[in-house]
């Protein structure tokens, strides 16, 4: 049971890990921002949008929430080219992450919106706010504040989901780890490094989300 660690064997591959971190961060940031955007739009559509829009959005949300991410990714990357839509691995990965986070984000944000007391809509209307103003100031921002911890966790989960994208040759942290493992056979060391990298990134991401909440909801800090 004595294992001799040899991190030296991995030293030549450090640039690959650095590139992996950059790709994972890129995927998470772009996927997170666009995904939350899709989530807000879908949450609006499902709870306050026109009636005809609700069934298709519900279909999208349930379709994504009830199928594995890997299958969604393979469908986009390997399946869509049959229809003439050929996306590179980065585009495919980002699209899959946006679609995925959009569906989960929709349900999280919708929970926040539906917790808005009806009187607040009426209050918005009586202050002569337009529907859009009411939605943004009275409904959306308090809703986001309510569900911010859940949304933060979902974005962290999406970042971990990006590990799956290594399957289509996206060169993220997991790809770097698998690649280095296949060249050095130092599986233990390689996956320790990958674990630490993901852990640190997740902690940074959570802290970032907390700081962002401070910026977005300055006057509501007391309720947090």
């Amino acid at each position, binding site marked *: 049971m004595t294992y001799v660690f040899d991190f030296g064997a991995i030293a030549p591959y450090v640039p690959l890990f650095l590139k992996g971190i950059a790709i994972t961060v890129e995927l998470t940031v772009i996927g997170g921002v666009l995904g939350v955007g899709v989530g807000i739009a879908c949450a609006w559509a499902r709870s306050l949008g026109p009636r005809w829009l609700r069934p298709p959005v519900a279909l999208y949300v349930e379709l994504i929430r009830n199928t594995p991410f890997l299958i969604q990714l*393979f469908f986009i*990357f*390997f*399946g869509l*080219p*049959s229809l003439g839509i*050929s996306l*590179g*691995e980065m585009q495919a990965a980002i699209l899959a992450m946006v679609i995925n986070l959009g569906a989960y984000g929709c349900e999280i944000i919708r929970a926040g919106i539906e917790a808005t007391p009806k009187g607040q809509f009426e209050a918005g209307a009586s202050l002569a706010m337009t529907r859009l103003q009411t939605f943004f100031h009275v409904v959306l921002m308090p809703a986001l504040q309510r569900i911010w911890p859940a949304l933060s966790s979902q974005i962290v989960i999406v970042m971990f989901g990006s590990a799956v994208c*290594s*399957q*289509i*040759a996206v060169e993220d942290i997991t*790809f770097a780890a*698998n*690649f280095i493992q*296949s*060249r050095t056979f130092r599986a233990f060391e390689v996956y320790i490094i990958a674990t630490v990298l993901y852990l640190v990134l997740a902690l940074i991401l959570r802290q970032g989300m907390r700081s962002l909440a401070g910026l977005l909801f300055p006057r509501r800090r007391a309720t947090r």
Partner: protein
Amino acid sequence: MLFHRRSIALGGLGLAVAAVMGLAPVDARADGLADILKAGVIKVAVPQDFPPFGSVGPDLKPVGYDIDVANLIAAKLGVKAELVPVASSNRIPYLQTKKADLVISSLGKNPDREKVIDFTVAYAPFFNGAFGPADVKVTKPEDLAGMTVGVTRGANEDMELSKIAPATADIKRYEDNNSTISAFLSGQVKVIVTGNVTAAAILARNPPRKPEVKFLIKDSPCYIGLNKDEPKLLEKVNAILTAAKADGSLNAISQKWLGAPLPAGL
């Protein structure tokens, strides 16, 4: 430690047996070829777990490239082929213990094996190479510059490709063979680097993008193995193979199982 000591003891016993066998005088048996002709049966060791060279068919009988070659040789000798299914690890022991007269089991030649058995001329192509559709113009590794190339991560061909590919080649490394195949078929990569057996498996599905061989990376054709000191059998099998190459019957087997003609140099 107990296990250790036991295995050392066993090893010692094995060495002793080998030494006795080595010292035993060569028996007076005439030659393998005469025995085979007299018995009317040739025992051929074939794979059963390595398609398309050998696998178990729907009727539970072995089928494949190696089985067809075994039957071809038996027919030319005018005897019946008795197929002996073997695993790749025990191909040579089957031969050495006379449980098989020939090993036709996608056997590659290397110096270690040449010390213990003899080889005929090559009978089947086996190589890693770059494959792509007809409209992709690639003839050498340098031509991969700026091209997307798919390969299975960590496989032998990945190691070779990483050495010879130009720096601007965009190598996409996939998790397993199936992903590499899918990436090629869906057009995500222009060229794949893989074994001719994998390419044959793709061709067997008759896809719109047909992988044609562009250049070889590592060539290790298959040979028929037989025991040493069987010059007559060796000569006869070589003659049969040479004739089969000339009259196109071996080429037909290659077309049938690998979906490609025999390479010119084989």
